[in-house]
């Protein structure tokens, strides 16, 4: 079955500490993965996609097909990074499967 797993519901880190939000997937085929973020009182928005191999707001994510993972990383967390993060996989042309989300709290 196609599935996206985010094992942590809540992740708390101190400002300046490294952050890693875990995402594992199960998908038969060539996966296309995304990270979405929802800041407080804002709509859900795309943070980054694996195809672009870009760094957005200091975050990066590398697709590891061997471990079927797409972990989101940032070397130095900032308070404004506090938000809800969802990992998602594209299943078919217009369908997406989302993980259960991880709430990141960056403590001062």
């Amino acid at each position, binding site marked *: 079955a196609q599935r996206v797993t985010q094992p942590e519901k809540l992740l708390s880190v101190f400002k300046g500490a490294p952050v890693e939000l875990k995402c594992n997937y199960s998908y038969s085929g060539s996966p296309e993965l995304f990270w979405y973020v929802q800041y407080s009182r804002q709509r*859900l928005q795309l943070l980054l996609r694996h195809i672009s191999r870009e760094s957005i707001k200091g975050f990066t994510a590398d697709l590891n097909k061997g471990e079927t993972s797409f972990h989101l990383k940032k070397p130095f967390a900032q308070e404004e990074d506090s938000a809800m993060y969802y990992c998602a996989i594209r299943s078919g042309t*217009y*369908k997406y499967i*989302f*993980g259960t*989300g991880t709430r990141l709290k960056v403590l001062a």
Partner: protein
Amino acid sequence: NAGVTQTPKFHILKTGQSMTLQCAQDMNHGYMSWYRQDPGMGLRLIYYSAAAGTTDKEVPNGYNVSRLNTEDFPLRLVSAAPSQTSVYLCASSPRGPANTGELFFGEGSRLTVL
């Protein structure tokens, strides 16, 4: 561009009542979809539409949609149940070469069924 607009933002209704959540987008996107967002459950796809005139459902019962034009994709709760208490998110994306995989979301409609 307003993007994806959802109304109402909040609503309370009683078990058995019907309700329509509105979703409109002004980006000429062909693809539209509805998700429900529940704590600990993430986002779950309810219905999607690849173009005006077509719809496909992901969950068996309790919801209905229509896609009469490109802009609008209303979601109807036929006979509301407490299990349908949730935040409902509408999303859109363009078809064809313009599609980068990004979904554009509305602000959500928080629905409580008593």
